[in-house]
């Protein structure tokens, strides 16, 4: 575990050494505000809540997080540095975890930079700050789950574009699983228990529940177990590739 922190540090620093990170954050902030105020019709709704802000996060993460995660292993493999990394005295698990946490921290920074929207709403009205806090935590946990999918697909291919596409598709399945439009559509023929099971694996189901201001262990467990599952899978894939 001795090289866990160096990797974490190197990775996190790496984000801010290239313009990519800033471009990502700028796009994230812009689209967030655009969706909240324009698509979410914030002023027309006349509600001092941040529901119209958080509700877009799954859809934003769907595209933005694969863009962040696609290079994580793919780049190392393309440039051959993966051999270097894995020959260092470091366990595979530590390397996966360090890369994941660095990326997660980066997302956290992007999320923190959205706080001015909260200040805006607090200035215009009296939002329930407990709900806002819980929603942030929920959004952050969900971002971790998205990220773990991206890291997994990044380990699959040398090609970043391929990684991006696969990650997008897998994430989309998880988003749609909890999308009530989809669930309503299938409700005509699928048995109820199946629908319930599928929607319980959907990001939107858990996100909506947390956005109300309720922290349930079930939601937290869902995100954490999913993240752990994908990271483990990533480790297995790398292990298999290393042996080849």
């Amino acid at each position, binding site marked *: 575990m001795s090289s866990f922190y160096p990797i974490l540090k190197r990775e996190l620093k790496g984000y801010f050494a290239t313009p990519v990170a800033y471009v990502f954050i700028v796009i994230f902030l812009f689209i967030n505000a655009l969706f909240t105020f324009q698509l979410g019709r914030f002023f027309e709704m006349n509600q001092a809540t941040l529901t119209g802000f958080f509700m877009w996060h799954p859809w934003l993460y769907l595209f933005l997080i694969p863009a962040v995660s696609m290079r994580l292993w793919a780049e190392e493999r393309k440039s051959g540095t993966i051999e270097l990394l894995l020959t260092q005295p470091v366990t595979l698990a530590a390397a996966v975890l360090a890369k994941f946490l660095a990326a997660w921290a980066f997302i956290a920074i992007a999320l923190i930079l959205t706080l001015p929207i909260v200040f*805006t709403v607090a200035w215009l009205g009296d939002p329930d700050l407990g709900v806002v806090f819980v929603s942030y935590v929920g959004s952050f946990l969900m971002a971790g789950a998205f990220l773990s999918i991206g890291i997994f697909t990044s380990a699959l291919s040398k090609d970043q574009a391929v990684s991006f596409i696969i990650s997008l598709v897998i994430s989309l399945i998880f988003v749609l699983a909890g999308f009530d439009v989809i669930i309503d559509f299938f409700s005509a023929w699928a048995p109820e228990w199946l629908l319930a099971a599928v929607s319980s694996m959907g990001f939107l189901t858990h996100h909506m529940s947390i956005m109300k*201001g309720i922290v349930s262990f079930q939601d937290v467990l869902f995100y954490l177990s999913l993240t752990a599952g994908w990271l483990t899978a990533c480790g297995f894939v790398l292990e298999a590739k290393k042996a080849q």
Partner: protein
Amino acid sequence: MFKNAYLLTVLLFTAAIVLAVNLIGSITLSGVKFDMTEESLYSLSEGSENIVRNLEDHVTAELFYSKTAASKIPALKNYAEQVISLLKEYESASKGQFTLDIINPRPDTEEEEMAMRNGLQAISLGMEEDIYLGLILRSDLGAEEVIPVFDPNQESTLEYDVSKLIYSIGVSEKPTVGILSSLEVMGAQTPQNPMMPPQQQQEPWVFVQQLQNNFDVVSVDQDATELPEDMDLLVIIHPKAISDGLLYEIDQFTLRGGKTLVFVDANSDMEQMNMGQMNIQMSMQANYSSDLPKLMDQWGVEMVKGAGSASFGGMGGGGDSPQIVGDNALGATVGGPGGRTMQMPIYLELREEERNADEIITNGLELFHMISSGGLRKKADAPADYEYAPLLTTTDGAGTVDGMMVKISRGNPKMLSEELNKGDKQFTLAYKITGKFKTAFPDGRPAPEAEEGAEPAKAEADPDFIAEAEEETTVIVVADVDMISDQYSVRKMNFFGQTVANLINDNLRFLSNAIENLSGSQDLIALRSRGKSRRTLEYIEEIEQAAARKFRDEEKRLEDELQETRQKLSELQRGKSDTVLTPDMLAEIEKFRDEQAETQRKLRQVRRELREDKEALVWKVKLANMVVLPFIVAILGFAVFIYSHNRRRKLS
């Protein structure tokens, strides 16, 4: 190939573990959650939990919710989700005695017909589909209760409304309410005095007629020696000279968990009116107050009494009689001499600020009238473990006046007003008191009053005597009797031969809320109203309201100007034949038209400017969040990037 098969197996295994963990989690942890909302919107209070847990029969709740149609109206959808999650809380707290079905009544379906047949109320918002958001409760014994529509405006009493319904479906009989009154609230049923000319048959007071719809109402005579059996609630109105024997019965009734609602008064207009004409001396000496000191003492409250006001202190009355509360800030408008209107400071007109919004009984009510009301005071030695909730209060600039003073100055609010100018206290006009009360008769049943000349009778020992209540109970004391009289609560109208009583204020709603609340279980009484979860953009609303005000003022000013011109025009016209227009009239008409057009133009401009105020704010907010902030991050990023790029180049 072997490698890939191995990898696939491992991956599938991982997926299986994740699924299993979630499945187990959903079974074992489904109830573990923390409600982080400010008002605990999604949690049941203890009272509701008790009610649903103690259900004797299984109750099925059918929530009719037009999910499809409501999804287009966010405010309604949010509220519906809150209702659903609250009902689910009941379901999970009930341990299987309460089940919830959610039904989406689409148009022209059997479900919609069912909703209509059961009296649910459709919300029509001019869309293709009507929206239903109502609840039907059915118990296994066949009882049925309905909430026709959940109104988002009544959000603060949502939990109470549902709990009340669940409670009442478990209660098969109408609760019995006893009324003990020195006034003829039940109508003239008492035998008439043969010495007096026969009176017209009197109808019961309107509130009694209303109560009879939902309760079994029984009358309790003032000289009764015992209370009716199976009485759930006793209403005492204007108690005068109640015998110790009856007081003892009432005392024991409350200690056994009976609920009591008491109306006392410092000066009852109703009693005074019933007395009819009297000579001045008699009327000066008459005492129209009522009190229940023996029992109220035990509850830890008392009427505000005093030696009379400074200027009239020495005159009659005074002494120990209850004082009348007056408040210059709350005086109702009455007709004065010469058709002028005046503020009568002892006719209190209470509004939202003077009622307790946390209490179910007063929440949502807006207007109360209390006529020469007394004041209530928590006694200095009131037990600390009783809970005192003021229901109605004055402002903190109220004072008291003596009954004598009121008699002298009747019809002269100015005198009272001056007297009350010194007022600097807040008085409670109605108290709700909850606690494990103690008896006012520590020696047990009092001896019956002996008739003159006879031996004092011995007290009969009461085998069921209770000295202290085991369970908490609640009493409500109100310091005005007139407020529930027809005179000050309804306007009666003749509608095709039928008398219809229209409420003129919330006095009777207050009374029926109190009775409904008290007749429920102690769990129901303990429920509080909740704050509103609906939050609006107040700052924007303020701007809009200010703009609307400004527009109205401006409109009025311009209208006034226009009116002036119009007047000039009509003055010119006066005395002239209406066919001939003189040149100066023509000029004036021209001027009027111009001014009218100008006014319209100015008003349009004002409206545009005011709208622009709000639009400018909205635009600024959007600009700051969408452009300025990302731009700052971009600049910052660019600077850091250039800096680190240069440093790296230098290093290399």
